[in-house]
């Protein structure tokens, strides 16, 4: 079965970022396909590579990057939410005249259409948030 996952909350702020990760991992372990993970609202903060949590804590961003790359998952950050919160890739840096990027490996920035497409192409959409 194909799943699209929506994550509305940032790491270390709300349990949604953890629940979504554990659900995604369990779905993959059971042989399901993750069509897309769409990070919306504060959820885009899951995709900055500049976080440095304490060494004895889970690294939520690295954990997503690793899972996404291992399973070739399309992990999309909402562009308008990312612009508001300063999550920047090469394209956004150039378009908006920023002097740095911070997007984490395995993520990309795109529009809300990607969420709609996820709903059309997947058997289920599961929303994690506050």
């Amino acid at each position, binding site marked *: 079965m194909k799943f699209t996952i929506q994550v509305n909350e940032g790491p270390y702020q709300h349990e949604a970022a953890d629940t979504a990760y554990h659900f995604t991992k369990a*779905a993959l372990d059971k042989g399901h396909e993750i069509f897309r993970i769409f990070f919306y609202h504060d959820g885009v903060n899951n995709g900055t590579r500049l976080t440095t949590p304490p060494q004895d804590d889970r690294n939520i961003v690295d954990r997503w990057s690793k899972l996404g790359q291992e399973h070739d998952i399309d992990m999309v950050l909402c562009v308008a939410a990312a612009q508001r919160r300063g999550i920047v890739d090469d394209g956004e840096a150039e378009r908006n005249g920023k002097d740095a990027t911070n997007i984490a490996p395995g993520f990309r920035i795109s529009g809300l259409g990607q969420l709609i497409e996820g709903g059309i192409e997947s058997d*289920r959409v*599961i929303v994690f*948030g*506050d």
Partner: protein
Amino acid sequence: MLHLVNKSPHDGCNLDTATSIMKDGDSLLLIEDGVYGAIKAGKAASLLEGRSVSVLGPDLAARGISEDKLVDGITIVDYAGFVDMVAASDNVQSWL
């Protein structure tokens, strides 16, 4: 339909709303702080009567709630069970 509730019954009325809208054949899964709704001595216990209710085991354990404190008849699932419940329902509604 599968209803997901992630709020404590002491923090908003999500569980009241979800249970008032549930139809025969629907399932309810309590996750995150939603697991507080499954406590037998809690204020929300009566809302769960006669319904198909499950609770996410890791979230119970994280809050130190043991199985004997739960409303009778509740099923405890792990994340794999959560995935199975999603696959078994045509729609999933997160009551955020």
